[in-house]
């Protein structure tokens, strides 16, 4: 049962990620990414992270990606043109990517063998409450700093998006 679900979600995630790269139209890429995020939320649920799963949906899929889609619609993005001016990325990219994947997998296989099972019992219970307690005790300072970060980001976005008085349009 678990394995079926895992392969279902993993399959969706992989397909979405590949489609993100494959599609030439950015809106489809965005939708693929939403699919990836949904699948990841499913995986999070399987990993006992209900809160993170739901927040993943709300924040990532429901807010960030909507923002992407909104911007794409606003600029009426067309399918991308392949200019390919960057020789570096074109020539060196694929071999490097392969190498990176091989390396990461090698490390992971070495450090975490398949036989390495988990201790799910540790994560049972009131997930959200635990996160909330951690967030407001041990991680209070980072949390507050993050809120300042968000504030700065909001102001930055407003300033950037504001129409300047000397704008002709």
């Amino acid at each position, binding site marked *: 049962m678990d394995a079926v679900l895992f392969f279902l979600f993993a399959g969706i995630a992989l397909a979405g990620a590949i489609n993100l790269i494959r599609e030439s139209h950015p809106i489809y890429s965005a939708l693929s*990414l939403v699919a990836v995020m949904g699948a990841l939320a499913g995986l999070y649920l399987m990993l006992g992270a209900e809160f993170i799963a739901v927040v993943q949906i709300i924040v990532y899929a429901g*807010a960030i990606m909507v923002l992407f889609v909104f911007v794409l619609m606003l600029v009426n993005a067309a399918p991308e043109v392949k200019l390919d001016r960057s020789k570096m990325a074109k020539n060196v*990219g694929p071999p490097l990517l392969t190498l990176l994947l091989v390396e990461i997998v090698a490390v992971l296989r070495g450090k975490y063998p398949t036989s390495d099972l988990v201790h799910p019992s540790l994560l049972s219970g009131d997930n959200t409450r635990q996160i909330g307690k951690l967030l407001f005790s041990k991680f209070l300072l980072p949390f507050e700093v993050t809120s300042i970060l968000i504030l700065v980001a*909001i102001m930055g976005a407003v300033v*950037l998006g504001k129409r300047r008085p000397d704008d002709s349009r």
Partner: protein
Amino acid sequence: MIPVSWYLILSAVLFVLGVAGFLIKRNVITVFMSIELMLNAVNLSFVAFGYMLGDYNAHIFVFFVMVVAAAEAAVGLAIIMLMYHNRKSLNVDDIELLKF
């Protein structure tokens, strides 16, 4: 019972796909989305580790990553809008002022 390494390898593959997207895609917004994909991949490994170690700190990290991603999206998209406004293009290869 799924071994944690499966999740980790899935995360690795997603991450590499994100990097590939960054290298391959020309549309700035898609490049941006590739970054989000990478962040998501990292989040997956965080949650997987958290599950393995029974540690909620991993969730907190994911939470922070999401917050940062949100902030990044807000500012980044504003910058992209400005860029589109000024250059009438979303192609990363058209934005090449920062060079020797």
